[in-house]
């Protein structure tokens, strides 16, 4: 089944054509440059930009997949979570096309997409990683930090999530405090690497003793903010590499320790991790080390474009729903949609 997928959950306008796990095309028009100036995502800008780009992005996705409209079997679109008015643009377009071309409509949770990213394949079906459920799934990005028990296709159980700030958001905020601009994750990674990832400050690791699998990065951010107030601007600039490194370490160390706890609680040692922060090579290294210790495996999105928001992952997540005929007549946007098996009911 050929699926046309659309994602406008935040600041990327994305469309793709997929068949099963194979990506035939994956077009992303990023608004990051547009938003960079604003230091974040600005909702109505996002909406207007999505509206201006979406037709072109879809046309291009169809063209570069070398398919025609008659070859498309279903249209999948992100229902949530995300920015309400941005989601609306994608949903409206998908609904319109579904009526126009008489194609069934599939609603996808953006987080399902991030999980399926790790198993995406190119046109030739590579890489050939066999899916062996269950997995301990994680999404680590600017808007999300979640643990999901991925029992099988379409079967998810949310195990824990951030109670306040997401991991990527914490990194972005620390970066802003250090004067590194937006988004700051990649810059922090580079600075930390120059400091050989040492941790000379030992900022607090929140929620490690909470007993559950939830995260809270607001406290870490707060303590970093008040720490920076105690040192001079000169000191801050002199110690930039080490501050960035210690902060990143506090975030990643918390994620790793919680992951270890999740592995112990669920007995599942095979991980699937998606989301923008997985572009960080140091985090990947730490996770590989962790799973090795527990004799497990870890899968990340194979190419960089799949770590961030994209539509190919939405198409792949729609694959099993399309097979089972989980189609919808209409789709409501759900800005704070939670991942669960219920999301897959008709």
């Amino acid at each position: 089944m050929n699926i046309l997928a659309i994602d406008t959950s935040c600041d990327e306008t994305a469309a793709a054509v997929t068949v099963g796990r194979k990506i035939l095309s994956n077009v992303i028009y990023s608004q990051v440059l547009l938003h960079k100036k604003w230091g974040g995502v600005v909702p109505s800008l996002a909406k207007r930009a999505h509206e201006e780009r979406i037709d072109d992005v879809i046309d291009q996705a169809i063209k570069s997949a070398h398919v025609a409209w008659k070859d498309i079997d279903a249209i999948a679109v992100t229902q949530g979570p995300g920015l309400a008015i941005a989601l609306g643009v994608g949903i409206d377009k998908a609904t319109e096309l579904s009526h126009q071309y008489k194609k069934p409509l599939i609603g996808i949770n953006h987080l399902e997409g991030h999980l399926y990213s790790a198993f995406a394949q190119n046109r030739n079906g590579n890489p050939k990683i066999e899916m062996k459920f269950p997995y301990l799934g994680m999404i680590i990005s600017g808007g999300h930090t979640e643990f999901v028990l991925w029992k099988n296709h379409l079967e998810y159980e949310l195990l824990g999530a951030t109670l306040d700030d997401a991991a990527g958001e914490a990194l972005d905020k620390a970066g802003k405090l250090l004067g590194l601009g937006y988004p700051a994750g990649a810059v922090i990674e580079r600075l930390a690497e120059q400091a050989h990832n040492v941790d000379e400050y030992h900022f607090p690791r929140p929620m490690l003793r909470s007993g559950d699998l939830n995260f809270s990065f607001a406290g870490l951010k707060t303590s970093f903010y008040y720490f920076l107030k105690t040192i001079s601007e000169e000191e801050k600039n002199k110690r930039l590499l080490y501050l960035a490194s210690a902060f990143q370490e506090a975030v990643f160390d918390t994620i790793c320790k919680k992951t270890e706890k999740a592995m112990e609680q669920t007995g599942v040692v095979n991980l699937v991790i998606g989301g923008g922060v997985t572009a960080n090579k140091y985090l990947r290294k730490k996770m590989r080390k962790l799973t090795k210790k527990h004799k497990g495996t870890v899968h990340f999105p194979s190419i960089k474009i799949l770590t961030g928001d994209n539509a190919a992952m939405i198409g792949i997540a729609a694959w099993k729903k399309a097979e089972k005929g989980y189609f919808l007549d209409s789709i409501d946007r759900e800005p704070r949609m939670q991942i669960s098996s219920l999301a897959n009911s008709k």
Partner: protein
Amino acid sequence: MANNDELQRCIDILRHGGLIVAPSDTVYGLICDATNENAVKKLISVKNRPWGKPISVFTDGFNMIDTLVKTSDKEAILRTLLPGPFTIILPSKNKVCGLLESERNTLGIRLPIHKWINDLVHAYSKPLTATSANISGKSPHYEAQGFIDELSAEKKKLIDLVIDFGKLPRNKPSTIVDLSGETLQLLRQGDILPSAKHSYTSTSASETKKLGLYIAEKYSSLGIDKPVVFIVEGEMGAGKTVLAQGIGRYLGVANIISPTYVVYYEYKTHHESIRTFLHADLYNIENVDEFSHLGLEEYLKKGTVICIEWGNKAGPLFDSIKKTSHIVSIEILYKTETVRSITIKEIKE
């Protein structure tokens, strides 16, 4: 909440000097007619309460309060705190049974945010006792059955009716604020600690959250005709999102996280008159021009509660918000690592 039959039954019992175990905004309470001396005596004996210890009363509004106590120059602060989880102590006008008053001739006044109690006091149109349903010296109850189990068979007979709301949320008993002297004094600390007019002290994130819930309860009723906008200011890490989580909890929204990344999240609520909760964070907004692109004005509709963090950046938005909405300004000041001073003011034109 209270249906008419139940209300009528309660009124009959109260009129005949009976005792009722009933839910309240804090813990389960033991209720009787505060002007009926025999009923009050019965209540004191059920509770094993030492004679001479005062007991506060539930009222249904400021008119009733005026008939019971001398408010004089305390009117303004009284109106800031009430309704809410507070017991306010003021000089008594001796209109209730004397056993409820203190030796200094003061009376504790309650005006809770609790529809069932409010409806009952209003229908009965006399003050009712507001004491926790427990044996003196023992802890209060969040489940009605817990109190009943504590009573001897003989005392059980003195209870005429139990209104069982199941398990109540674990709110502490009310904060007791003594306004009878020159300055405001706290006699017992509940969940919300006023420190001066419009000001509260929070000593933990959980208290900040409860304060959020309290102000949401207090101001959400305004949202029926116009949107209610909470503008929250405070440094990074002051607890703005924690406060927003408290507001959300009142509206039945449990999963509130930081909206910084997307600027705002829209939530469907579980509340009878407020349908939408919008939680915005303007942290990432830097230029004035951006406000025309924000689209927040589209949400300024009745039945909506909006909480805007970093509201001090909302400058240009402020005028359009002011024209259409009720505005409550909240300022969170960092005192120590855990303590915050929180100022709450309704902004009126």
